[in-house]
């Protein structure tokens, strides 16, 4: 019998993700992939997987699933919250062996927003365009998880489960988060005052935040002129400013091209932190 993870409850949103689908943007297919790439890599490494193996990205919590077909190592990284195996709390950011039939539950995240659940062998869904990532914008890749969904688990990797003396835990911060920014292609479309305000203001994550983009609450950013921008391709972390002067950080499932000027780009070192921001959480910007 092949090993599988059988979903009993997906919670708010549970998706299969890996490190994405690069190389198809010119065909209108965005990169997608785990929103917190560092957490996906770490969870995979904790169970001896390759970095690019598919994980389950669980939003907020409320996720419950049963291991079938044999024992299976798993690890949870990213968001910080109760990880419960067969009714007993186990350590996050640690490889844990689930028995055949074991039930794993991820409770409401206390810090951060997105758990990365890696199983040893990886989630073995059929890849589409070389990736097992669910692209929520285009509907490409494995369907969002629903109760009863059976996720096949891949073959045991060659690497053993690494022995780690110290906990490799990096719980997302619960206070203000400072993100490093690089200049955007259209920074000169904004007034000097807007450029200064952008870095001096305190921002908050709005309720309108998903895998496509994270809209921010704060002051409005004034443009030098109101000219139309011909749509152009963006990279993950692009901070696009809409016509109302409000910024949005574009994320993994963003459209390939956008028609609003990009004032700045979140540095790669800060991008994973955006995935773990909770609505209402404070954020500030600094120059990278």
């Amino acid at each position, binding site marked *: 019998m092949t090993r599988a993870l059988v979903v009993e409850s997906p919670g708010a949103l549970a998706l299969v993700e890996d490190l994405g689908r690069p190389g*198809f943007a*010119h065909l209108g297919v965005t990169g997608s992939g785990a929103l917190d790439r560092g957490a996906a890599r770490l969870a995979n490494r904790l169970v001896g997987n390759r970095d690019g193996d598919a994980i389950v990205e669980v939003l907020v919590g409320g996720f419950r699933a049963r291991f079938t077909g044999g024992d299976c190592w798993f690890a949870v990284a990213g968001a910080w919250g109760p990880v419960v195996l067969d009714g007993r709390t186990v350590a996050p950011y640690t490889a844990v062996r689930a028995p055949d039939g074991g039930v794993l539950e991820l409770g409401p995240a206390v810090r951060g927003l997105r758990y990365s659940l890696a199983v040893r062998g990886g989630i073995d869904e059929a890849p*589409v*365009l070389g990736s097992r990532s669910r692209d929520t914008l285009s509907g490409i890749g494995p369907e969002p998880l629903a109760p009863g969904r059976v996720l096949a688990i891949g073959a045991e990797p060659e690497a053993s489960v690494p022995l780690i003396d110290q906990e490799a835990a990096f719980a997302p911060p619960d206070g203000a988060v400072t993100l490093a920014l*690089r200049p955007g292609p259209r920074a000169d479309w904004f007034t000097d005052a807007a450029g200064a305000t952008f870095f001096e203001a305190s921002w908050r994550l709005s309720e309108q935040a998903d895998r496509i983009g994270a809209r921010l609450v704060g002051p409005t950013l004034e443009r030098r002129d109101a000219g139309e921008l*011909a749509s*152009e391709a*963006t*990279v993950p972390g692009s901070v696009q400013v809409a016509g109302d002067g409000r910024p949005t950080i574009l994320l993994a499932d963003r459209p390939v*091209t956008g028609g609003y000027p990009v004032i700045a780009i979140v540095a790669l070192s800060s991008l994973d932190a955006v995935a773990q921001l909770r609505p209402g959480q404070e954020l500030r910007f600094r120059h990278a």
Partner: protein
Amino acid sequence: MTRRLLPSGESALLVECDGLDEVLALHDALAPERRPGVIELVPAARTLLVVVDPAVLPLESLATWLRRIRVDDAPATDAAAFGEAVVPVVYDGDDLDETAALLHVSPEELVARHLAASWRVAFGGFAPGFGYLVSDDWSFEVPRLGAPRARVPAGAVALAGAFAGVYPRQSPGGWRLIGRTDAVLWDAGRPEPAVLAPGRRVRFERVRG
């Protein structure tokens, strides 16, 4: 011809051109020579985004390459580099008569011009497999619908602005529909998932419905 290199993070540069013709010429120059380290080459109406793996091709080297590359003033017209697609069309779109009237031609004339033009895919970006088609033989400017349709069927052949296009899947859309094709223009299971990839030459061929 001016080319501005704009910053776009740690692993990309955005090249801004004077207009679409220069974007097409630059794309034609860059695309066939797929340098190691180039991950994405994404043309748009006035820009071309080049995404690299900076460990293989550092941004400084990319910038030098982009500044120095020779671009033919007249983009290659042969289909050799990108291939040609022939799309069979039944010209019975809901907006055909009204669109022709807006352009002060008969529906037959509009169809004949659409068939006679040699098109090329300039860029994508709206949805997987959707290509914005341009042609030197096409002089019409087609206004978009006042209110977009909530559902445009897959295979709808459409016009908007200076562009022609084909909806690869059912989606909302504000382009004017002049016909339909049963060609499968997008299939993620194929090695080349999109028929209408940037650079490809396209001809439409009339079929009876």
